Structures are given as structure tokens and as C-alpha cells.
């Protein structure tokens, strides 16, 4: 990647929203550039489509169990634990959650997996910089919710004393999704940290988080994309 064009001096930095700097001064970064600390772009389409594809069966399974909890179908298939799945889906814990959230817990799970798919598919291939809010919502939906739901499935087996094969399958899928999604969230956090180190401005952080440009955000993004290359060169030099 060529060196960036010279930027305006610091005292003429652009306002975050009015953005008055001349366009020709700015280098247009590659949307495919891998951010620190990866050798690949975690926002690339191929990775995000895989996340959506992995989440799809979990959404289908959760919907299937939700249909049973709504009594739109008469039973649930379980090749391993047999009738235990129905006991889990009809357990007191499950009914209590339906009272709290007004819909069966499996339906909520289906919506969470739908959210994983939708948030994975939204945004450009440089969304780690241009839409930090979207990556963070995606991360919140996948990582903490995924871990909590997996833990809940295991706890439910321990508390209710009955195991549910399909629930365990969705729990495993949740953990795979966590593994697939954390790299992009990590790059976004590094980018925001770089921006904070440059500016120490809550105002700039706020507008950058919501996807508004600034010279500082541009430079921080270039730095995060460049540092990865520099780190790699250092690593190669060190091991030469």
C-alpha cells in the first residue's frame, strides 16, 4: 500500500460532521486491507457469509423447537435423549422464561440467531473502521449471548436433569460462532483504542463509533491497517 498523501496540519483538522477538508488530499484506503493483528480481513465477505451459513441451521433448529413450544407441531425429534427434549422444552424453567419474555425461549433463540445472520451480512468489507457500532452489536449478539446461551443449555441439563440433543447442537454452533466472530470485534477495539490514543476526545470517539468520518479516524484506520504489515515485517526480520 503506498504512503498516504499529506494531510492538512493539525490546527485545521476537520469537524466530524461538516467535514470541510478538500477531498483530493485524502488517500482512499483499500476496503480489503487486513487490520491489525490479522493476516486477513475479518470483515471480508467470505468470512461473514460463513458466519451466516453456520448460524442458519441453529436458527432453523431453534424455530423448530419454538414451533413445538407454541404447539404448532406435536413433538420434537431427538435421536439421542428421546423424550427428554420435550421435558426440557416443557420444563418450569422454560415456562418461567416464556412468562418473562412473552414468547417461548426457543423463539427468542431463533431471533438471536437471525440477528447473528443479519448483523454478519450488513456492512462493507471495512466495517471494522467505518461502522464500529455495527461490529459491536454483532459482537454483543454473538459473543456474550452465545456464551450465555451455551452455558444455560448445560445448566438446564444439570438443573432440570434432562438433556436436549438439539439444544446441545445449537450450543455448539453458538460457540463456533463466537470463534468465527471475535477477530473482527478485536480489530474494531484496536482501531478505537488507536483513535483514543491519538485524540483523547470523547466527542471524536462518539461520532467515530457511529460511523462519522474525521481526519483522526482516517489516520487511526490507516495506522491499524499499516501496523499489521509492519508487525509482520518485524516478525519476519526477527526470525530471519
Amino acid at each position, binding site marked *: 500500500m503506498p504512503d498516504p498523501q499529506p494531510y492538512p496540519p493539525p490546527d485545521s483538522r476537520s469537524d466530524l*460532521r461538516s*467535514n470541510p477538508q478538500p*477531498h*483530493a488530499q*485524502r488517500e*482512499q484506503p*483499500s*476496503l*480489503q486491507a487486513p487490520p491489525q493483528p490479522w493476516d486477513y480481513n475479518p470483515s471480508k465477505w467470505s468470512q461473514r457469509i460463513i458466519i451466516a451459513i453456520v448460524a442458519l441451521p441453529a436458527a432453523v433448529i431453534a424455530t423448530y423447537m419454538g414451533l413445538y413450544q*407454541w404447539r404448532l407441531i406435536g413433538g420434537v425429534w431427538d435421536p439421542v435423549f428421546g423424550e427428554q427434549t420435550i421435558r426440557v422444552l416443557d420444563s418450569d424453567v422454560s415456562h418461567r422464561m*416464556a*412468562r*418473562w*419474555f*412473552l*414468547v*417461548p425461549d426457543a*423463539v*427468542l433463540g431463533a*431471533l438471536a440467531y*437471525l*440477528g447473528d445472520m*443479519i*448483523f454478519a451480512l*450488513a*456492512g*462493507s*468489507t*471495512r466495517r471494522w473502521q*467505518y*461502522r464500529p457500532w*455495527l461490529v459491536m*452489536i454483532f459482537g454483543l449478539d454473538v459473543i456474550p449471548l452465545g456464551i450465555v446461551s451455551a452455558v444455560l443449555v448445560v445448566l438446564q441439563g444439570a438443573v432440570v436433569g434432562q438433556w436436549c440433543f438439539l439444544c446441545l447442537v445449537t450450543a455448539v454452533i453458538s460457540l463456533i460462532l463466537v470463534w468465527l466472530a471475535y477477530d473482527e470485534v478485536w480489530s474494531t477495539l484496536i482501531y478505537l483504542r488507536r483513535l483514543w490514543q491519538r485524540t483523547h476526545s470523547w466527542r471524536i470517539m462518539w461520532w467515530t463509533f457511529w*460511523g*462519522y*468520518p474525521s481526519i483522526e479516524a*482516517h489516520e487511526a484506520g490507516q495506522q491499524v491497517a499499516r501496523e499489521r504489515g509492519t508487525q509482520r515485517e518485524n516478525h519476519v526480520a526477527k526470525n530471519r
Partner: protein
Amino acid sequence: MWPRIVEVMLAVWLMISPFVFRYPAEDRFLWFNDYTCAVLIMVFSMLSNLPRVEKIYLLNLLIAGWLIGVAYAHPQAPPPPPYQNYMVLGLTLLIFGILPTHCSEPPRKWKEFYGGEWGNL
């Protein structure tokens, strides 16, 4: 663009919900609520294609909140199917309603910042 299309489809589902869930004719609130919310969702989604009001789709989040609120306002928990439908629709609308219209591209402000379009999305 696709989030807005899905929102319009959700609005259509809301319009046919009275027939799917067989609302009683005398339950005017449910009928009125469904059609008012559906029309508003469609209007906000379609208007957001105009550059001057491109953020108006965010008002769909208010409708999502309203639908969820109506479901929680029902004294029974879990509530009857039409209210559970509101809950599911409200949560689904929250997922799509937060996404920008051209969400597969960099934000317009960033495009303007660099003075044009990107060649390689």
C-alpha cells in the same frame, strides 16, 4: 436497500395478521394497531430512500418498541397469540430497523470524506 425491503415485508405480515390470528371484529384496537403500524413502517421504510430524510427508517425502532410495549401491557403472561406476534415482530423490526439503507457500502459520510465512490466493494 435490503433492510427496507424486509421491513416492508414485515409490514405486510402485520397487515395479514388479523386474518391469520382471526382477530374478533369487535377488537378494534388490534385491527387499528396492526394497520396503523404497518402503514407507518411502510412509509418510513420507503421515505428513507430520499437522501434528505435517509435516516427516517430509524423511526421504525419506535414502532418496534411500541409493539413490544403493547405485548408487555397485556395482563396475561405469556399473552395470547396476537400479542406474541407483536413481540416477535417488534424484536425482528429492531434487528432490521437499526441497519442503514445502503448497509453493504461504506457510509455516505465516509464516501464524501474521500470525495467519491469506492471502486472495489
